[in-house]
């Protein structure tokens, strides 16, 4: 990370007044690190890749996460699962809302990062706004989807019987490659809104927002380990994301059929749930729905006898 990388959109140095009085100031560059268990470590591998714009402008050195980083992230996610899934749904909603607030506050930074990664300003503004709104959308669902998708089942015997959704556990996600921010937010939010914890591999070509988004998460009262964000190459990591016994479900957002087949095959290892979100336009309303939450939910059905002594009509 010795290379000097100039942020193209920062124009402070072009301020005429400053020029007069001071020498050109050296920018402080951001180190894009990964996010595991509420910490921002560098990849244990020590490897990096250079994120660049379409025009070839080098934007940042980004961690090239390894399978060991993934392994560490799974441990963090598993440790966080009990606490997060047992939190009051209302509280989860508040934390997702807090994420939206934090994102709103750092809007400019995200817009700039998107622009650096070849999005037009107007589109970047739209994407960031949509990401904020999407977090709020899922914030609201945290304590409601259970009501919509639960059932009290009228069994024929003298039992009270109800079915409720419960989080499936640790979810590994390979985020959409095209939509650096809205894609990332759209796949993380429903998974954690439902009480799961996750490990997300950010867009390889547009990784900047993911690391900055980790900072948003980290300042949102989100317990450590609920969301873990890695940067790197899906081509290296996809198989590890599915080939882990302690991951309960995997989400993959690209159309690569060979990767899909590989994932379905490896999923059999521990009867993992696999979801391909490869036809979703994340920039539209179809990118949000409580049915996304339900994908990483299990239905638990509970039975209990109902005493029926008084007024039962029958003798006892």
């Amino acid at each position: 990370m010795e290379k000097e990388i100039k942020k193209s959109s920062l124009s402070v140095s072009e301020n005429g007044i400053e020029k007069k009085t001071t020498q050109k100031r050296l920018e402080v560059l951001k180190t894009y690190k990964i996010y595991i268990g509420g910490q921002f470590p560098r990849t244990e591998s020590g490897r990096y890749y250079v994120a660049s714009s379409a025009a070839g402008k080098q934007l940042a050195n980004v961690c090239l996460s390894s399978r060991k980083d993934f392994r560490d992230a799974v441990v963090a996610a598993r440790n966080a699962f009990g606490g997060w899934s047992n939190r009051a749904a209302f509280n989860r909603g508040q934390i997702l809302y807090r994420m939206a607030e934090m994102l709103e506050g750092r809007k400019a930074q995200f817009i700039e990062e998107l622009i650096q990664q070849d999005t037009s300003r107007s589109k970047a503004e739209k994407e960031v706004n949509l990401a904020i709104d999407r977090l709020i959308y899922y914030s609201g669902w945290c304590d409601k989807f259970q009501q919509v998708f639960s059932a009290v089942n009228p069994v024929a015997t003298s039992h009270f019987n109800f079915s409720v959704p419960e989080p499936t556990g640790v979810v590994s996600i390979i985020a959409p490659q095209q939509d650096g921010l809205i894609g990332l937010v759209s796949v993380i939010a429903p998974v954690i809104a439902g009480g799961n914890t996750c490990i997300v591999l950010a867009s390889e070509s547009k990784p900047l927002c993911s690391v900055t988004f980790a900072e948003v998460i980290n300042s949102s009262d989100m317990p450590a380990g609920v969301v873990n964000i890695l940067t790197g190459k899906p081509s290296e990591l996809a198989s590890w994301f599915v080939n882990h016994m302690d991951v309960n479900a995997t989400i993959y957002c690209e159309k690569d059929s060979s990767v899909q087949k590989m994932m379905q095959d490896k999923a059999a290892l521990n009867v993992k749930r696999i979801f391909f979100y490869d036809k979703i336009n994340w920039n539209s309303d179809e990118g949000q729905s409580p049915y996304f939450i339900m994908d990483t939910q299990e239905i638990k059905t509970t039975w209990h006898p109902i005493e029926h002594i008084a007024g039962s009509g029958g003798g006892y």
Partner: protein
Amino acid sequence: MPKTGMLTTIPDFTLTPRIDQVGAEERASRFTKRSIKKEAKVNGLKLVLNMIDLTTLEGKDTEGKVKQLCYKAMHLHDALPGLPAVAAVCVYPTMVKTAKNALKGSGIKVASVATGFPSGQASRDVKIRDTRYAVDNGADEVDMVISRGKFHAGEYNYVFDEIAAVKEACGEARLKVILETSDLITFDKIRRASDIAMYAGADFIKTATGKIQPPSSMPVALIMIEAIRDFYYKTGKMVGMKPAGGISKAKVALHYLVMVKEVLGEAWMNNHWFRFGASSLANDVLMQIMKEKTGVYQCASYFSID
């Protein structure tokens, strides 16, 4: 402390095992699924006959009525030789002497209700004297009722002491303690009352007086039988069981036998430890035995009502 055969420390009756009604009913219904046919049926029915406490407990009972009942007890159906006799005749205390005389030499016991039967709403003193009166007149067995009001008020010590006092008043007579389960309502309370009665010295526990509705049922009897089993395991002391009220069909009686067989086992399969309190059961059993013998369905007119 009365000498009631106490073999262990008295437990805290608020801590008696909890009962899940639905589960208990499921278990009880399993006994009714046993298919009792042919030889097993005849043998079972004869056993049932031998376990019956033939009962008359009416305000309008007279000596004449009781004498007739006693005759019936000794001659259940003379057209069918080789039948066992019933276990006992059960009457009010004032009828004990009559019954005793009528049954002399038959081996059939005389049981008497006592202690302010059926409500039990009498003073301790009256209850003791009622008991002594029955025993003094020759009752072999006393069927007492517990004080349900005191029980519901949580005065378990009162209920316990009363049973112990009556037991003492019984002397050699065996004491059956009627819980009147339909007054207790919940299975938890039925279990608790069973435990209180047994620890206080009951020789038998009995479901009901037969005077109130609904009558006792298989699940209720199951709760009591399981209490008896647990008491046996804890103390080594056997206690008898007497379901009463509402058992008028031979088929139902056989279900009870199945229940005793599968919960308490061999030791209880006799009339020293198991009784049916019933007035009309005997004739239905006789009709079924006759049917098994002749292959022809029977008509009640051919069996004397008492």
